């Protein structure tokens, strides 16, 4: 499974970034289509426009570093290396889904690649990342935990508790705020009273702000932030200013939204411009996009061939099987 493996942004290492951006973008576009066609049930929240955050941050993480994600978590999962087949089968609610068809978009997880779960509860992943960081430290793994959350989640109590606790205990956790300006159907500016950097400083947590639509900028900022976190001085906050291109969820009519939000700065277009400036041929970019499309086609075909999620298997996973059996 191709994944952005620590490419260095300076000398030509941008191509793996580009491929990872394409993968997330095309997966989500495909999911949007599958949702519209009725093949993906439930709610899906697309992160189109925010891909550079996932790709940039994950480019400086190893497989054993852990991440706790959000309701808008496809990009996080894909960039962390979740296998495409299991991912699509999960979103199509099939037996071969990485979560057996019990999680779906909002609860997709893959412990094997350190993806501790998307989360249907705003802010809930933050203490989970904190606990994961505690485990890394106590068990001496040398790995770190990353907590992704949106700017709307800044209003949740656990965010504030977790910043305090992580700073107090100097835990190896990187906080990544994806500031897309929206908190569901309301501008975040109407929900959050504080400036992120000043707020973070009050907890003694250094804050690094970055253009979240430029994968190179995110990767460079993440590299510095992660180096600090790995150094053991405690948590760092990475504020990625980014753009939610689609509605809050697929099917959102967005009547609350006007057209004057300015130009969406597309992470893929930004990466392409950089690549062209490095002399990468158009045909090479097209070939990457085509290769990604073929992989997605194959994964969707496989997912469609998988059987429906099994009720018996689901029922059996409420508790870990024991001699005594599960509750009645």
């Amino acid at each position, binding site marked *: 499974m191709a994944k952005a493996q620590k490419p260095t942004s300076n000398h030509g290492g941008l191509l793996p970034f580009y491929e990872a951006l394409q993968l997330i973008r095309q997966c989500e576009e495909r999911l949007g289509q599958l949702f519209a066609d009725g093949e993906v049930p439930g709610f899906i929240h697309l992160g189109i426009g925010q891909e550079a955050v996932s790709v940039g941050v994950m480019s400086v993480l190893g497989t054993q570093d852990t991440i706790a994600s959000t309701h808008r978590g496809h990009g996080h999962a894909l960039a962390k290396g979740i296998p495409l087949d299991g991912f699509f089968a999960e979103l199509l609610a099939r037996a071969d889904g990485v*979560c057996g068809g019990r999680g779906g978009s909002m609860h997709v997880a893959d*412990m094997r690649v350190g993806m501790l779960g998307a989360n249907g509860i705003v802010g809930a992943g933050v*203490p*989970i990342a*904190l606990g994961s960081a505690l485990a890394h430290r106590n068990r001496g793994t040398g790995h770190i935990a990353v907590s992704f959350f949106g700017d709307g989640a800044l209003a949740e109590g656990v965010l504030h508790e977790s910043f305090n606790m992580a700073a107090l205990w100097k835990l190896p956790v990187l906080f990544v705020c994806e500031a897309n300006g929206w908190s569901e159907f309301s501008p975040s500016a109407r929900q959050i009273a504080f400036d992120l950097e000043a707020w973070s400083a009050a907890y003694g947590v250094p804050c690094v702000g970055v253009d979240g639509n430029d994968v190179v900028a995110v990767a460079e900022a993440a590299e510095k932030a992660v180096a600090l976190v790995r150094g053991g001085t405690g948590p760092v906050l990475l504020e990625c200013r980014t753009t939610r291109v689609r509605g809050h969820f697929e099917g959102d009519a967005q009547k609350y939204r006007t057209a004057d939000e300015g130009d969406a700065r597309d992470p893929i277009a930004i990466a392409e411009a950089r690549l062209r400036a490095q002399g990468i041929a158009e045909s090479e970019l097209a070939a990457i996009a085509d290769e990604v499309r073929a992989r997605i086609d194959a994964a969707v075909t496989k997912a469609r061939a998988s059987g429906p999620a099994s009720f018996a*298997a689901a029922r059996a*996973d409420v508790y870990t099987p024991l001699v005594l059996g599960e509750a009645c």
Partner: protein
Amino acid sequence: MADLRYGAALNRALADAMAEDGDVIVMGEDIAGAGGSFGVTRGLLDRFGAGRVIDTPISEATIAGAAVGAAMGGLKPVFEIMFMDFATLTMDAMVNQAAKARFMFGGQCSLPIVLRTPHGGGLSAGPQHSQCLEAWFAHVPGLKVVCPSDAASAYGLLRGAIADPDPVVFVEHKGLYARKWDAPDDLAVLPLGQAAVLRDGRDATVVCYGAAVHLALAAADGLAAEGTSVEVIDLRTIQPWDEATVLASLARTHRLVIVHEAVEAFGVGAEIAARMADVGFDELDGPIVRVGAPFMPVPFAKGLEAAYQPSAAQVVAAIRKAMGREFSQEA
């Protein structure tokens, strides 16, 4: 055999579990330096160090959420919530995260976490420091709920809870911490899900847990003097509860009373009664009777609290009612 206090038994269980398994950690408010609000974690800091015995800020939601993440990372966190009333602040982590992680991630992980917390009244602690909320947790698929009644079972069940691969809410009774019992030096680890028949009887079965066990035993003593033989079952684990043991007892006595300190309405007793009315219908020779607190918050004033908490006399009356003798003698 030696005298053993409930609180000391819990302390020993934590120490033994920590000595045996380096992944067991203990967290909570004032549990390290201060040894816990009820002294249950006393001495653990000196023995196991600040890396494993962790004083937390007053952040229940994040303590519980962090326990989930820590368990995903291979630790076995045991965290104390100072009063069960404060467990309300852990609800997202317990109900939406811990309880569902194994299920919703397709069996990818088990979360061996234990939330230890004291419930119950008797201390004039008032409406926000006295509640018995175990039924809330027992209602959530994915959680287990335990409530020991004496020192030996407190030890055994806490060891069992820590060894259990799934999230356990371990409920202690404040009124029992200082009580002592004769206990063997070599305490057994008890698996969850098994009730104990504390007293054999022919005429009626009383199912109870936690401090209510002692009301049931007192009621059984009183009725024995009249020639009524009462079987007392200490449930020990509330979720999953030991249906087989209760049904087998009902098949002998044909009368069933359920006692707990939690409010009667929508409680643990309601579930047991409904289940026995179904699978045990043919065995029943009388109504299933519940004894629990009235449907009101726990009051502060001593007299009010005493009137609120179930009594042995109420248990006696309930047994008589279950036996169809409610009018034959005064309760």
